[in-house]
């Protein structure tokens, strides 16, 4: 069974060029196709501006693709109304300070998705909210507080409770622990893992922290300037990375091992510009092993067990 399926999805944004400049087109997601099986966790990694958050918003139905198809649980996202979408797929965002209404009590925040459906009775709403708060480790007393009266980790628990209260099938987690301290990050990652197993959820898990992705994901996609340049089962991606960008990302992870020093990632200083995607392989200006043909030829997708890689040289 396929939980999430994307076919040739493309999304561009127009950026105003200012007084005299021409408008520019930023290609955020460029012809991306993939499928996530039910119960799987697809981790998406990449640098800021690679399009990973745009991808999340497309799948959530918060943005419309320029072209291509997006389906969750076999239903086209574009054809669903907001309520139906909310019953299937829910987000957990990075910053629990920004994603919770500061004037609304925790209980009411968690109750909101149920009330928006319009067909739950007051007693039913109360019961479901109580259950959900307890399930994410928040006391009834905390339910009466405002978000400002909670710690960052507690706030992220509220966001998770709100996402799961409708019993969705899919949760899109966009950097869910990036704003948290390590000790709290571990608590939240453990909670997300327990909930996934118990409720049979499918996750799309976006993070710039590769160690976190390795811990939670069953497969990983590496995104660069709007494309998946490599995709593989987690063990394979971390054990035998093929794309030079994947290798550079992995090399840049600073594991807590003294004496190793800081690695030379070898990517240079030219940062990618999504408004000006290079010809040929889009990674070639930063690639440590690029050859002249990489500036001309677009790399085809080469199939690999459980995924693929887009590089001329592997």
């Amino acid at each position: 069974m396929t939980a999430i399926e994307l076919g040739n999805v493309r999304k561009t944004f127009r950026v105003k060029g200012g007084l005299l400049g021409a408008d520019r087109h930023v290609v955020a997601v460029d012809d991306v196709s993939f499928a996530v099986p039910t119960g799987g966790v697809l981790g998406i990694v990449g640098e800021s501006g690679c399009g990973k958050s745009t991808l999340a918003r497309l799948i959530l139905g918060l943005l419309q693709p320029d072209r291509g198809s997006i389906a969750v649980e076999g239903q086209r996202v574009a054809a669903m109304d907001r309520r139906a979408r909310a019953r299937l797929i829910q987000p957990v965002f990075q910053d629990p300070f920004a994603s919770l209404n500061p004037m609304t009590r925790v209980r009411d925040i968690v109750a909101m998705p149920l009330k928006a459906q319009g067909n739950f009775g007051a007693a039913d709403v109360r019961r479901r909210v109580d259950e959900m708060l307890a399930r994410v480790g928040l006391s009834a007393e905390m339910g009466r507080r405002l978000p400002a009266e909670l710690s960052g980790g507690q706030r992220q628990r509220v966001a998770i409770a709100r996402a799961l209260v409708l019993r969705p099938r899919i949760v899109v987690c966009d950097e869910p622990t990036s704003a948290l301290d390590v000790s709290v990050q571990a608590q939240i990652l453990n909670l997300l893992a327990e909930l996934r197993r118990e409720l049979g959820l499918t996750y799309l898990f976006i993070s710039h922290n590769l160690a976190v992705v390795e811990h939670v994901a069953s497969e990983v996609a590496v995104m660069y300037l709007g494309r998946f340049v490599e995709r593989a089962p987690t063990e394979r991606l971390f054990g035998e990375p093929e794309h030079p960008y994947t290798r550079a990302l992995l090399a840049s992870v600073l594991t807590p091992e003294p004496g190793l020093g800081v690695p030379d990632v070898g990517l240079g200083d030219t940062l990618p510009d999504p408004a000006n995607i290079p010809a040929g392989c889009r990674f070639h200006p930063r690639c440590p092993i690029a050859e002249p043909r990489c500036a001309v030829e677009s790399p085809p997708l080469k199939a690999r067990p459980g995924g693929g890689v887009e590089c001329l040289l592997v």
Partner: protein
Amino acid sequence: MTALLEIEQLQVSFGSTAAVRGASLSVARGETHCLVGESGCGKSVTALSVMNLLAPNARRSAKRLAFEGQDLLGLSDSGMANLRGNAMAMIFQEPMTSLNPAYTVGSQMTEVLRRHKRASQRAATDRAADLLARVGITAPGLRLGQFPHQLSGGLRQRVMIAMALMCEPRLLIADEPTTALDVTVQAQILRLLSRLQRDLGLGMLLITHDLGIVARVAHRVSVMYAGEVVESAPTAELFANPRHPYTQGLLRCVPVPGRIKRDEPLGSIPGTVPRIAPGFAGCAFRERCAFADESCSSAIPRHRPSAAHDFLCRLPA
């Protein structure tokens, strides 16, 4: 030989909230000392106390606070202003908020040198261009004429580092210098800082919450919790033989690539950092500690398993 920076029994409070409660640490010449801890533990406040950049409502006191043997507590504002940005410099997490958006990179960089060393504009500009090249910026001439918003995050942080080095400081305090950057850029900036630290013999106080950074760049580590330094040791020693339960817990929380078992829970520390009320006594970690008992609410001794390693816990083992 006296240490470059000596902090002994530092106390900082804001109203009735104690942010730093008796923290001690020192930075030797040519040493990178990492101060690690979670948000609110007092690590940034410690750094700002050294630079005397605390908010006006802060109260700072210490048994000793000295830079190159010179007392900083009794130093006048103008005496402090002569040190700051000169012999001791600081770089911050978010370079966009610490660079002035209305001035070019060149004018901000040269101002430091003109102010402290009374250098001519030409000499200052030459030095700025030199330093930009040294921190790995190509076309420094072009960058000097640009405004901060025209630079990427990584370039801005390089500019901040170059600016901090304008007056040849002996002490560099870096507060989460790479937290706002992508991992690939983070590695470049940390390599740069390590190289400069070595080449220039800088003493560096590096503040971070990231144990991966600590392991890779620090000579010495101090772990802070709720305003206290709970453990301090040479880096290899701290990672191999952590003694404080909080240090041990922190190390278990970090997912290590290659050693990760999927679906196996990560180590975590239950609970949250407590609010420290006035008159608080005993160990601030006891509510979250698996080994705690009633003796943890009385005064806690500091143990010294070796000359360079100390920790604050009633458990000698």
